């Protein structure tokens, strides 16, 4: 059983115990524990179930590479599925539950997948089964598969924690706070570079303090402490722990995932902070990960990476078992045996697959009285939910059992793989190192940045430099190179001397024993979480899934939450062997960010709730809010759709607003309309190119409605242009168009007609704009001003600067409703004041503020088009019968050439008409008019469609506009508009102006 030792635990503060619960069981750990070490200290080795076969799963690793030990952490709005116990710091009151089993962790029904059906469920079985009968896939098979897959429970509540981003800029970013990272940061810092050193764990120093050796004659911990304090004293160096280098992106962009409060969930401040760092050079000192060995039963709880076994003893004072069999193909695992022995634990045997055996450490082990068997391996592991023993065999053979040894733990080491993820994210290439049996970064093929030069340097074990001394020298070199590359040439000092026992050469062992028969291969796990075994990869190869990507996708090897940190190399070695080709020929799958999973919340940052997206508000927004506004999002703006009175339906409110406006007086907040000043000697010429009609002839003091097209010919925007003086125009755009049209103008001025003398300014928000509309609009305004705005004093399509109750205002006499109407423009900061004044002044006329829907209906009653309704990006002004707004005199305007193209010049296009249902009802939104027959694809032919359709309170009937094939030539014809349910609505083609055809209402 695993337990807490009396001695050891360099990272612990044993004086502070912490209570936590696992599956409801109350347990105790101490400060400094990870959840993993605390669970092991309580003999909780079994922590989960595998993905496919629901096999019992125990902790195999001590870091971010852990594939098995995932739990549901916390409760309610703090619940987080798939939390890795090896990287979860223990805190007082932590609660967690194991995953992917039913009814319980100890007894999981799903395990029958393994017991009975495992051999019937090889890699890719689901591609070959469940094909017939067809409906069963969706309704029976898939639900079953989905239910048994999926690991952690889905959270239910909204996250209550906060998150944020942070932008930082450094010459050199060092990722990994082991001795190599520390040395690299020191070198770069001394040379004068601005350095950030980040470490994902709470503590610094990485493996060195566990693995031993000496640095400049001292214990590695001493070097770590000394270097840390030195770095802390350097003003140009920033140290950050609990921060993982999550991803490396183009042009030196690095994501730093800082887990600010995961270890103290009640503290103030953000839970995670996502650093978006721009680095001149990046040093990946991310260390290496130990590989498992592939022998039968290597997935049984109690089988663990040798280095992890060592970590738990040294860092956390936890023993995995009393009797630990060590199995290896390299010298490193001997350290584990020695450490265990020194801790007073039994190591019945070290199985060294190498015939030649190990080096200095092996001798040391023997001296300590540990039995060492060379050329031997494990045929199979005994036990089910916990290791009970191992059967030994010759590595060279097929697995004939030589001896069985009782043990409760197995420490395995298949060699080490440099952590090359961050090197590879942005295109760094790898080389296969035959001697060390590993892929390591190819220094010739580093990822390149905006200058075309490499911007990532791997250092230490991450660069394949495993020996302590080599790692430190390599790190020094990396630090100097990074500093130099960022223009810092100061003295970088020199690397300290690292001393550690020399290792004998590793011998690659991809399968144990080498000739393992199929029964053993079907029990030799590669991917512990996804249940991918040696036999599965071999099957994939046999079936022609020869590309490493095919094999990965077919078997799901490396697609689990650990992204194959333990399984990938073993898997592609097995694949290469099956294909009879060298490993580098097979190559690796692509490494993608993040290095280990990061919370979606940290990516969203603080863009949540009222900071999710900006909401633009007009100066009158609060009044609308207080007066029953039913809001409609328009672009980033909020505009009142209508103002509901208590007990009033939305439809009734709209009807009331329209009636009241047409009968007497309405107010519209038109502040969101775009307002762009265009000034200069060439302003007229410029606007003539922008608009389809002639603007240069407009007289100062007058307004003109205009249309704008893109180079594609399609109608883009419309609005009223006012000429302020000889060389100044004010262009009104649609609400949505304000920014895009201003950008459109600047684009043409800057990139095509840069010699034209024109300046523009977007003054949309400088003004609050209020539409005063209806028969009593003039009377109302006259109460507030002495200026002459009479029929003669301010004629239709004219504008004038006046004073309204002391507020300087510009009045445009224009109408989008057909009523006598004025648009008043005042400084935004006076908008609310004027609005209040108008509401007050209009009281005697029963003034009614109205919203966007009233606006839309009234313009439709008058047959005015609306950008976005009558237009949809495929409509040209000619379709809308607006030839009057297309200048014949002009040689050119944006879109003119496009409109000459065959299809657009075709006389037989769908054109704008009015539509009246024969029974007075309202035509459904977006309905199409059908024609006889079907097209080549069997689709019903159509001859038109509804573009706007409303109930008209003024006419008390449905009115609509639409685009109909040759519509204007077919007045009076009745068309069929099928509803979605197939029933037909009949509508007659009529003139699009439904109300006050002669425009008498505004002509007063």
């Amino acid at each position: 059983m695993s337990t807490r030792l009396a001695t050891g635990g360099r990272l612990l503060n044993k004086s502070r115990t912490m209570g936590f619960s696992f599956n409801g069981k109350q347990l105790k750990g101490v400060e400094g524990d990870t959840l993993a070490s605390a669970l092991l200290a309580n003999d909780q080795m079994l922590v989960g179930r595998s993905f496919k076969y629901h096999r019992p799963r125990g902790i195999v690793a001590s870091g971010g590479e852990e594939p098995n030990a995932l739990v549901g952490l916390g409760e309610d709005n703090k619940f987080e599925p798939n939390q890795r116990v090896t990287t979860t710091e223990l805190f007082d009151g932590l609660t967690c539950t194991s995953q992917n089993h039913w009814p319980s962790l100890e007894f999981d029904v799903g395990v029958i997948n393994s017991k009975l059906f495992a051999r019937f469920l090889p890699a890719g079985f689901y591609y070959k089964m469940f094909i017939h009968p067809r409906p069963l896939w969706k309704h029976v098979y898939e639900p079953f598969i989905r239910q048994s897959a999926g690991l952690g429970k889905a959270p239910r509540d909204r996250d209550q924690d906060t998150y944020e981003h942070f932008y930082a800029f450094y010459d050199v970013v060092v990722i990994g706070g082991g001795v190599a990272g520390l040395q690299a940061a020191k070198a770069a810092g001394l040379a004068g570079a601005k350095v950030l050193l980040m470490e994902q764990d709470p503590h610094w120093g990485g493996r060195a303090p566990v693995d031993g050796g000496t640095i400049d004659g001292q214990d590695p911990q001493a070097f770590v402490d000394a270097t840390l304090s030195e770095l802390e004293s350097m003003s140009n160096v920033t140290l950050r722990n609990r921060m993982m280098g999550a991803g490396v992106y183009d042009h030196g962009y690095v994501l730093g995932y800082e887990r600010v409060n995961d270890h103290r969930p009640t503290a103030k401040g953000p839970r995670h902070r996502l650093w978006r760092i721009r680095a001149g050079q990046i040093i990946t000192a991310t260390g290496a990960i130990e590989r498992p060995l592939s022998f039968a039963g290597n997935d049984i709880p109690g089988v663990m990476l040798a280095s992890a076994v060592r970590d738990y003893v040294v860092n956390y004072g936890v023993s995995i078992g009393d009797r630990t069999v060590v199995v290896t193909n390299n010298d490193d695992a001997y350290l584990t045996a020695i450490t265990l022995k020194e801790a007073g634990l039994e190591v019945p045997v070290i199985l060294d697959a190498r015939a030649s055996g190990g080096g200095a450490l092996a001798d040391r082990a023997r001296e300590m009285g540990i039995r060492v068997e060379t050329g031997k391996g494990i045929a199979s592991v005994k036990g089910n939910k916990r290791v009970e023993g191992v059967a030994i065999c010759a590595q060279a053979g097929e697995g004939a059992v030589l001896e069985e040894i009782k043990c409760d733990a197995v420490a395995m080491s298949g060699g080490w793989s440099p952590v090359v993820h961050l090197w590879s994210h942005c295109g760094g290439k790898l080389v296969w190192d035959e001697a060390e049996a590993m892929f390591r970064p190819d220094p010739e093929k580093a990822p390149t940045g905006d200058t075309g030069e490499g911007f990532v340097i791997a250092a230490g074990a991450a660069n394949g430099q495993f020996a302590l001394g080599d790692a430190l020298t390599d790190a020094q070199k990396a630090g100097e190179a990074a500093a130099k590359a960022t223009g810092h040439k100061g003295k970088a000092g020199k690397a300290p001397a690292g001393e550690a026992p020399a290792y004998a050469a590793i011998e690659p062992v991809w399968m144990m024993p080498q000739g393992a028969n199929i029964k053993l291969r079907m029990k030799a796990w590669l991917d512990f979480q996804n249940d991918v075994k040696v036999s599965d990869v071999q099957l994939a190869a046999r079936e022609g899934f020869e590309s490493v990507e095919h094999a990965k996708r077919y078997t799901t090897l490396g697609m689990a939450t650990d992204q194959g940190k333990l399984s990938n190399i073993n898997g592609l070695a097995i694949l290469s062997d099956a294909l009879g080709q060298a490993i580098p020929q097979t190559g690796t799958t692509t490494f993608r960010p993040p290095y280990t999973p990061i919370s979606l919340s940290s990516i969203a940052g603080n863009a949540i709730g009222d900071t999710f997206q900006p909401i633009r508000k007009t100066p009158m927004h609060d009044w609308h809010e207080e007066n029953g506004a039913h809001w409609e999002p328009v672009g980033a703006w909020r505009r009142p759709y209508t103002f509901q009175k208590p007990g009033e339906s939305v439809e009734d409110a709209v009807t009331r607003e329209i009636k009241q406006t047409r009968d007497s007086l309405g107010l519209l907040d038109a502040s969101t309309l775009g307002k762009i000043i265009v000034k200069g000697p060439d302003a007229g010429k410029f606007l003539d190119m922008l608009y389809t009609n002639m603007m240069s002839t407009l007289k100062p003091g007058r307004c003109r409605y205009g249309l704008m097209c893109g180079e594609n010919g399609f109608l883009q925007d419309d609005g009223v242009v006012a000429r302020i003086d000889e060389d100044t125009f004010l262009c009104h755009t649609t609400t949505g168009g304000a920014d895009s049209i201003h950008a459109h103008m600047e684009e043409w001025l800057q990139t095509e007609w840069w010699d034209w003398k024109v300046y523009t300014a977007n003054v949309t928000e400088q003004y609050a704009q209020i539409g005063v509309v209806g028969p009593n609009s003039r009377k109302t305004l006259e109460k507030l001003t002495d200026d002459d705005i009479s029929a003669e004093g301010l004629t239709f399509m004219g504008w004038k600067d006046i004073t309204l109750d002391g507020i300087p205002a510009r009045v445009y006499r224009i109408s989008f409703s057909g009523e006598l109407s004025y648009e008043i423009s005042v400084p935004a900061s006076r908008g609310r004041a004027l609005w209040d004044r108008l509401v007050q002044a209009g009281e005697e006329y029963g003034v009614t503020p109205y919203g966007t829907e009233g606006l839309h209906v009234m313009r439709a009653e008058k047959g005015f088009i609306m950008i976005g309704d009558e237009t949809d990006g495929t409509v040209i002004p000619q379709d809308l019968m607006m030839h009057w707004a297309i200048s014949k005199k002009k040689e050119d305007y944006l879109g003119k050439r496009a409109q000459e193209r065959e299809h657009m010049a075709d006389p037989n296009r769908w054109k704008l008409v009015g539509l009246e249902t024969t029974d007075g009802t309202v035509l459904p939104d977006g309905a199409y008019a059908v024609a006889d027959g079907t097209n080549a694809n069997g689709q019903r032919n159509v001859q038109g469609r509804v573009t706007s359709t409303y109930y008209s309170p003024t006419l008390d009937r449905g009115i609509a506009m639409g685009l109909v094939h040759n519509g204007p030539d077919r007045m009076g014809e009745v068309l069929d508009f099928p509803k979605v349910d197939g029933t037909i609505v009949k509508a007659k083609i009529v003139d699009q102006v439904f109300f006050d055809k002669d425009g008498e209402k505004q002509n007063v």
Partner: protein
Amino acid sequence: MSNAAVSALNGATVQGFARVEETGLHGMITLRGDLASAKVKKAVKEATGQDVPALRTINTGDSGAVAWMSPDELLVMVDYDQVDDTLATIESTLAGEHFLAVNVSDARAMFRVSGSGAGVREALAKLCPVDMAPGEFEPGMFRRTRMAQIPAAIWMPDAECVHIVCFRSVAEYTFNLLRDAVAEGGEVGLFS
């Protein structure tokens, strides 16, 4: 019922590890023209008492400030009730030139984040992709950039304070961003 001018948030404030306040109405004029021309220099001088600022800088004084917006654009800042006179001055000085001067006082909202130098730098570094480190961003500089999801301009009148100008319609969004950025417990401890 007064009809006095009101700024977007009417001087709202919030206190975290730094203080955020909307600073009310300010006179602002967008001036576009040939920044190298003697007449523009003269106009700016007469309007604000300042010289035309160098690339991405701001010149400040008692009678006004002027910031470099783009190669052909300046932002002239004076007291809110001064703006019409200032505009008139500019118009008359530049009479006959090709230029554009327009009052944008009401189209903008202005914020002030103050506290420790480290605090205000950190708050802004949470929102803008700009190096806010001492030495990289200093008083006198003027930077237009992205603040979360909106465009904004920032500068430091002194080492303990940052000013932010954004569009009036998004004043509330900006305020909320800054509220979150200065929330207690969010100190990064980088620039201190």
